C-alpha cells in the first residue's frame, strides 16, 4: 500500500482565503472602502500595515497548503505539516472511531468534500481532518479505512478462507431507510418548523419599518382589519406560507436522508444543499440512545442516536442521529437490523412502590431554597412556592412512571425522564465503569442508584435512581462477568 505523500486539493487555498476575508471583512471595509483616498497619516499607516498583514496571511495560507502532506502506510495515516517547525503525526486506522464527511455548497460546485476521521482521544488532537479533497480521494480514504478495520476483525475471529467471502459481502450495502413524502410532512409538523417563519417575518417587518413610515401603514391596517374577508384571506395566506416554509426547510434538512449499512459499517447521510455523512464501524458503536420529546411521544415517534467514542462534530448537525422522526416500532426494528448484536426488549421492569415513597419523601433542595428566598424577600408572592412544589412533584411522578430498566444477557437498558424520555441501551463490554450509590434514605427503603459510564465525547454517564438493592447487587455481579466476553489485544 506504499504511496506518495499527497497534498490537499489546491482549492484549499481559495477556501482558506475566503475564511480570512470573512474574518477581516470589517477592517477591510473600514480601511479600504470607507477611508479610501484618505489624507490622514495614521489612516495611511494603518492601511499599509493591514495590507502587510493580509499579504502575510495569504502567503501563510499558501505555505500551509504546500507543507501539509498526508500519506497512508500500513494502515496508518502519516501527516507532516509546518514549514519552520515541522510536525509529524501518525494515526493508526484502527483507532479511528467514526468518519464524518461534509459537503457544503462550495464543495459541491467543484466536486470536492471534506472528510474527518475521529479518534477517541480526549484532547483536541482527536480528529484528523482533510478539509478540501476531491470526492474521489475521500472515497478512496474511506475504503482504505474500512479495509483495515475489516482485516482486524477477520484476524480476531476468522480464518483466511473467510476473508474472500467477507470481502465480497462487504460491498453489498442495504438501505434501511429513506424518508417518504409522508415522513417529511410528519417531520415538518412535529418539529413545529412552520413557527420558524415568525422570527423571519419579524425581522422583515422591522427592516421595512426603518424604511417606510409605518404610522400611515398602521392606519391602513386598521381599516383593513375592519373588512373581515380581507382578514380571512390574509390569515389563510399567512398560514399557507408558514406551512410551505416549514415543509421546505424540513426538506432541506431531512429530505435526502439515507440510513444504510453493510456487513461492517453503518452509514447515515443527509442534507439537500449542505450534505453531511457519518459512518461508523458496527463494533465501535458504544451505545444506542432513543429519545422522545413530549410531542414525539404523543405522535408515537422517536429519535435514535448512535453513540461513538469519537467526536460527532457540530452538535446542531446531529450527524450520528438516525432519522429523528421514526415511528417507535420502526426505530426499535431498525436498531436490530443495523446492529445485529443488539437485541432491544420492549417490556422492561418498573420501579417498585418503595421507590415511589422515597421519591415523594426526598426533600427538594431547590424548592426549600426558593421558598426561603421568597419568604425573606417577597412574601407577597407565596403562591409561586406552591406552584413550584406542584411542578416538582408532577415531574417526579412522571419520571417515576417513565423509569424502566432491564438486564438482558449482555445488554443493559435504562429508561428515565419526565417530559422528555430517554432510553439508553448498551452492551456490557462497552461499559467502561460502573457505580452503585446508596444514600441513608435509600438504605432505609432497601433501594440504590446504579450508574454506567460509557465512552463518548465527553464520557457518557447514565444513572437510574431508586432500583431495589437486590437489583443493584445483580447489576454489580453482572458487570464483574464482563471478562467473559471481551476481546483482548
Amino acid at each position: 500500500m506504499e504511496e506518495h505523500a499527497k497534498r490537499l486539493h489546491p482549492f484549499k487555498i481559495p477556501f482558506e482565503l475566503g475564511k480570512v476575508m470573512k474574518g477581516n471583512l470589517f477592517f477591510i471595509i473600514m480601511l479600504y472602502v470607507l477611508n479610501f483616498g484618505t489624507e490622514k497619516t495614521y489612516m495611511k499607516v494603518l492601511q499599509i500595515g493591514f495590507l502587510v498583514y493580509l499579504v502575510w496571511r495569504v502567503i501563510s495560507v499558501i505555505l500551509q497548503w504546500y507543507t501539509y502532506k498526508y500519506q497512508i502506510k500500513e494502515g496508518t495515516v502519516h501527516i507532516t505539516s509546518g514549514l519552520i517547525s515541522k510536525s509529524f503525526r501518525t494515526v493508526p486506522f484502527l483507532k479511528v472511531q467514526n468518519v464524518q464527511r461534509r459537503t457544503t455548497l462550495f464543495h459541491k460546485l467543484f466536486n470536492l468534500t471534506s472528510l474527518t476521521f475521529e479518534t477517541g482521544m480526549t484532547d483536541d488532537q482527536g480528529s484528523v481532518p482533510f478539509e478540501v479533497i476531491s470526492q474521489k480521494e475521500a472515497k478512496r480514504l474511506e475504503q482504505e479505512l474500512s479495509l483495515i478495520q475489516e482485516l482486524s476483525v477477520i484476524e480476531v475471529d476468522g480464518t483466511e478462507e473467510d476473508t474472500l467471502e467477507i470481502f465480497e459481502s462487504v460491498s453489498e450495502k442495504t438501505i434501511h431507510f429513506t424518508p417518504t413524502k409522508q415522513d417529511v410532512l410528519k417531520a415538518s409538523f412535529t418539529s413545529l418548523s412552520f413557527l420558524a417563519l415568525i422570527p423571519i417575518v419579524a425581522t422583515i417587518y422591522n427592516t421595512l419599518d426603518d424604511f417606510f413610515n409605518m404610522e400611515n401603514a398602521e392606519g391602513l391596517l386598521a381599516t383593513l382589519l375592519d373588512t373581515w374577508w380581507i382578514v380571512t384571506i390574509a390569515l389563510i395566506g399567512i398560514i399557507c406560507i408558514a406551512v410551505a416554509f416549514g415543509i421546505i426547510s424540513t426538506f432541506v434538512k431531512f429530505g435526502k436522508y439515507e440510513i444504510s449499512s453493510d456487513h461492517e459499517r453503518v452509514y447515515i447521510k443527509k442534507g439537500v444543499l449542505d450534505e453531511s455523512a457519518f459512518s461508523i464501524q458496527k463494533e465501535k458503536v458504544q451505545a444506542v440512545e432513543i429519545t422522545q420529546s413530549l410531542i414525539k411521544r404523543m405522535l408515537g415517534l422517536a429519535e435514535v442516536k448512535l453513540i461513538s467514542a469519537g467526536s460527532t462534530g457540530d452538535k446542531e448537525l446531529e450527524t450520528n442521529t438516525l432519522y429523528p422522526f421514526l415511528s417507535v416500532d420502526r426505530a426499535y426494528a431498525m436498531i436490530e437490523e443495523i446492529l445485529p448484536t443488539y437485541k432491544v426488549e420492549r417490556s422492561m421492569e418498573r420501579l417498585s412502590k418503595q421507590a415511589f415513597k422515597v421519591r415523594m419523601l426526598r426533600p427538594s433542595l431547590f424548592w426549600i431554597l426558593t421558598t426561603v428566598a421568597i419568604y425573606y424577600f417577597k412574601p407577597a408572592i407565596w403562591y409561586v412556592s406552591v406552584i413550584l412544589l406542584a411542578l416538582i412533584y408532577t415531574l417526579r411522578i412522571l419520571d417515576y412512571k417513565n423509569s424502566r430498566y432491564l438486564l438482558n444477557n449482555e445488554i443493559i437498558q435504562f429508561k428515565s425522564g419526565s417530559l422528555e424520555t430517554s432510553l439508553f441501551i448498551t452492551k456490557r463490554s462497552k461499559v467502561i465503569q460502573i457505580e452503585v450509590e446508596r444514600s441513608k434514605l435509600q438504605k432505609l427503603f432497601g433501594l440504590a442508584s446504579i450508574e454506567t459510564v460509557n465512552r463518548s465525547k465527553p464520557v457518557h454517564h447514565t444513572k437510574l435512581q431508586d432500583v431495589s438493592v437486590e437489583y443493584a447487587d445483580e447489576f454489580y455481579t453482572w458487570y464483574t462477568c464482563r471478562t467473559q466476553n471481551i476481546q483482548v489485544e
Partner: protein
Amino acid sequence: MYSMIQPPTKKISKESVKVWRMTETITNLVILAVLSILLYVDNYFAWKEWIGWTLTGLIVLLFFHAIWSIFIEPILLQKYWRYDVSEEFIQTKQGAWKETHELIPMTKVQSVKLNQGPLLRKYNLYSISIGTMGASHDIPAISEKEAYELRDKIAHFAKIKEVD
C-alpha cells in the same frame, strides 16, 4: 449488596486522619485570614454595609465548616474508605452518609500515579491516582510499601488491553 462478590476490604492508613486534619486546618486558617483582612479593609474604608454583614456571615459559616471538616469528616472518611485490586477489577467503596461503590475494569486503566505532598511525606504516605478513559480515581493515603506494591500490581495487570 455483595451477595455474590467479595466487598472491598482494604482500608486506608489511620494516619490519614491526621493528614486531613492538618490540611483542613491550614485551608481553614488561610480562608479565615483572607476574610479577616477583607473585614478589616471593609472597616477601614467604610464600604457598603451589606459587605460587612456578608463577610461576618461567611466567617460564622467558616467556623461551623471548620468544626465539621477538621474534627468529624476525616474520621468518617477514613472509617468508610475501602478498596481492593484484583486481576480484573479495581473496587472502591466510600462514604458514610451516601455510600458509593465503584467498579473499574483493569483493562480500562490507562495510568497509575503516586503522589506525595509535604504532609503525606511527614507520615510516609502516598496517594494513588488511577487514570481511566472516563476519569481519574484516587485512593488517598496509603503506606509507602503498600503504595508501591499496589502501583506495580495495577501496572502489571493493566498491561492487558482490550480491543476498543
